[in-house]
């Protein structure tokens, strides 16, 4: 019953999206604006149907209806309800259902908010969204059908993959990732809509999607950071990034989208880079689909790879259609995309944005080449190679360092042309903070050039970006006599986009400090301890108290209680564990982490004697790692500041001239 409801909803949604995608262009061609309501109705109906299907599948999971193939595949009566619900995205088929739902949600929302807009942009964007939705519906009735009947109905299922039910972040990272990934379909659809409707020279598509793009970007950022955190907390190797193909798949669209968020300001402000922005947005979407293809098709060996089947060929066909169609459209429209303005001076904000885009794009291509190289090498030379961390670190570090430097220079530079004296005053705080950070890193023992540069430029960027807030607030205090905090909050709410951006920059600085700190100063040690014995890493002493075991409904847990000592005082108790799941031969290690602002103590249980007489633990001192998670949070706060509606400026209180100058 549940199964039929879920499946038939998708079948009907397939029909509705097909009809809408055919009918929409006809309505536009005939110039019948009164018919557009049917096109938009298709978008809303699709949302209703996919929602129904998703809810039915969740109900099937929660009620342990093992007559549904997906439930039989990932469900188990012993799994806690929370992990049962989130197993919706734990395997291939369910994740496609969830994808289709998020897409339907975005499509319905963006169409609803823009339904009254004149012109053909919104109808064509709606058609594009329907076509993408159509593809996912085809997957759901074809190679990724989660609603197949199972007979005889099993009494119980194997439960989700143990790694996926071992941490609460599994409930956070995938939805964020989908919200980000799928959200990027919205600006893409409007870019395509702009090209189809001939409104491409106009900034309409950019203005309509500005908040959508920033939101999707923020979700993607949060997802990447949450994914790093999950990997750090769950996998037990003490790292957060390994340049795995699937990590790269989420990172590449992030790079192009970040580039877009910057370069789009040049278009809005100066009427330049129109073709480039269109390319960036189309490329970003292609990269999201490419990323999904890499994960789902099994074409590249990866730790994240889902089970494979024929789905790879469907994705390939879709990529082919998207690539050919968008390349065709962009190249065909390129005549209309001439720049209105041109560069005035080499030392200007425009130049900083251009360099920023250059580095982001090269960065993306470097990651893309590294990810696809094994495939190319096998095709050309017939050899199996793997491209690992050394390649990526070596190739991308210079670009990261350069980008962080630009992040400090850019905000200080005015549009058009910079004047020397003013620039000096704006850069000085940055130089001071940067030198302090670099010296601190050298004193702490950093000897790697990139590492010292990372600290130097992170400090520089921090100084310059914070200086922008301080300078702006001070100007308001002088002009209006407001208290400093009121001035700061009015400053931000008066130009949310600008100060949201600077806030995001500060977030990136924090991430940089965490990454540079942990990769430069990390220390680790492994030891076998009897109760009462201690181990010391980087001046932190840990004492093994006891080993213990306990039964949980879905697993067996073995743990070690370790005490982080401060002299004779116990500073904190840390309990690394091993979880044994019945469906898995080897245990799932579950490290435990205690965070401080200076760094984390990361403990992993490696082995234990059955009688509890000793344990082998790995202790890692991870300096500054919590700053990465904090930085991710600040990045998202920046994005939130950027998307909130602007406060209307009262006409009686014009902005101080000192402030208006150099504003984007």
């Amino acid at each position, binding site marked *: 019953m549940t199964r039929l409801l879920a499946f038939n909803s998708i079948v009907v949604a397939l029909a509705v999206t097909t009809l809408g995608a055919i009918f929409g262009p006809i309505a536009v061609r005939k110039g019948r604006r009164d018919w557009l309501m049917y096109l938009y109705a298709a978008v809303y109906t699709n949302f209703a149907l996919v929602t129904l299907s998703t809810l039915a599948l969740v109900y099937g999971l929660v009620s342990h209806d093992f007559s549904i193939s997906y439930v039989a595949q990932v469900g188990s009566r012993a799994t806690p309800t929370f992990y049962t619900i989130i197993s919706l995205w734990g395997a291939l088929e369910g994740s496609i259902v969830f994808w289709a739902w998020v897409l339907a949600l975005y499509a319905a929302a963006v169409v609803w908010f823009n339904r009254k807009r004149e012109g053909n942009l919104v109808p064509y964007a709606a058609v594009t969204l329907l076509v993408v939705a159509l593809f996912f519906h085809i997957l759901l009735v074809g190679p990724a059908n989660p609603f197949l009947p199972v007979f005889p109905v099993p009494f119980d299922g194997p439960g989700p993959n143990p790694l996926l039910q071992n941490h609460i972040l599994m409930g956070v990272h995938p939805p964020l990732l989908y919200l980000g990934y799928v959200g990027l379909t919205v600006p893409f659809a409007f870019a395509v809509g702009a090209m189809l409707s001939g409104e491409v020279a106009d900034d309409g598509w950019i203005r309509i999607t500005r908040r959508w793009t920033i939101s999707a970007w923020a979700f993607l950022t949060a997802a990447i950071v949450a994914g790093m955190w999950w990997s750090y907390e769950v996998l037990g190797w003490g790292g957060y990034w390994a340049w795995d193909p699937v990590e790269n798949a989420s990172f590449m669209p992030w790079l192009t989208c970040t580039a877009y968020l910057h370069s789009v300001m040049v278009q809005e402000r100066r009427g330049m880079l129109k073709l480039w922005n269109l390319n960036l947005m189309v490329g970003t979407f292609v990269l999201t689909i490419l990323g999904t293809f890499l994960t789902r098709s099994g074409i590249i060996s990866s730790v994240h790879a889902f089970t494979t089947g024929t789905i790879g060929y469907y994705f*390939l066909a879709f990529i082919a259609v998207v690539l050919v169609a968008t*390349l065709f459209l962009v190249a065909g429209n390129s005549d209309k995309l001439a720049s209105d303005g041109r560069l005035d001076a080499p030392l200007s904000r425009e130049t900083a944005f251009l360099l920023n885009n250059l580095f982001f794009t090269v960065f993306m291509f470097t990651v893309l080449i590294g990810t696809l190289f094994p495939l190319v090498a096998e*095709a050309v030379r017939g050899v199996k190679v793997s491209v690992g961390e050394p390649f990526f670190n070596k190739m991308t570090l210079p670009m990261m360092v350069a980008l962080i430097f630009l992040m400090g220079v850019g905000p200080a530079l005015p549009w058009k042309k910079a004047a020397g004296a003013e620039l000096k005053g704006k850069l000085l705080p940055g130089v001071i903070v940067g030198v302090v950070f670099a010296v601190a890193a050298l004193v702490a023992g950093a000897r790697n050039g990139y590492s010292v540069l990372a600290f130097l430029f992170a400090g520089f960027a921090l100084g310059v970006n914070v200086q922008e807030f301080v300078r702006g607030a001070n100007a308001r205090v002088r002009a209006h006599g407001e208290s400093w905090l009121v001035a700061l909050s009015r400053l931000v709410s008066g130009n949310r986009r600008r100060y949201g951006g600077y806030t995001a920059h500060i977030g990136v600085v924090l991430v940089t400090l965490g990454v540079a700190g942990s990769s430069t100063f990390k220390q680790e040690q492994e030891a076998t301890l009897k109760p009462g014995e201690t181990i010391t890493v980087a001046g932190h002493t840990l004492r093994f108290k006891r080993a213990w075991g306990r039964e949980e409904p879905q697993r067996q847990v073995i743990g070690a209680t370790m005490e982080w000592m401060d002299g004779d005082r116990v500073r904190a108790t840390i309990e690394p564990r091993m979880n044994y799941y019945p469906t898995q031969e080897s245990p799932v290690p579950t490290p435990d982490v205690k965070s401080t602002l200076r760094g984390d103590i990361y403990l992993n249980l490696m082995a234990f004697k059955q009688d509890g007489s000793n344990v082998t633990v790995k202790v890692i001192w991870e300096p500054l790692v919590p700053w990465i998670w904090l930085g991710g949070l600040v990045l998202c706060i920046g994005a939130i500041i950027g998307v909130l509606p602007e406060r209307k400026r009262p006409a009686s209180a014009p902005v101080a001239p000192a402030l208006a100058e150099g504003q984007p």
Partner: protein
Amino acid sequence: MNWKRASIAAATAAPVIGLFAWGLTRDPNSIPSPLPGREAPAFTLQVFAPGQGELSRPVGDSVRLTDLRGKVVVLNFWASWCLACRDEHSALSDVAQSYAGQPVQFLGVLYNDVPDKGTAWIAEMGGQSYPSVDDPGARVAIDYGLYGVPETFFLDATGRVAYKHTGPVTPRVLRYKVDSLMAAARQAAAAPAAPAADTGANTKAGKVQ
């Protein structure tokens, strides 16, 4: 709309699509073993499961690989905890039985497991026609560069690794490999002055699949 430029741009997608299409036909997890064509690492291991009837060897007997020269050897690494080993069990046992009396030796090698569990597993699976040896400390598995279980190695009559199969093996693959290796051995015996014949056959056998 500039149609010419649009069409040229669209055509540039072809190589990328082609590369992906070709990539889908490959298995990224199949890592070529450096062993095929080389001499198989020698070992001496103790039988813990005797096998049945004509193929059986007494428990505790030492199996020395060098003693098996002149026979085609099928070396199957398995474990009682390995699920895929269940899939291939009957194929191995039946095919081995059908070659009884011919110069072929099937041998199971227990990997990361204890003999008691291995014996219990064989009983549960309804017996195994050929003997299995224990590999304490997985030393032989390491010599053979084992990636996981099950893996099956086909050694020719001269003691070289001719082919390695990763994952559950099927009767078809077993028969095809064993037959071609036996044929190569017969040819070599018929023309003892031409050692090139057997290496040639090996490479051929190694390339199939």
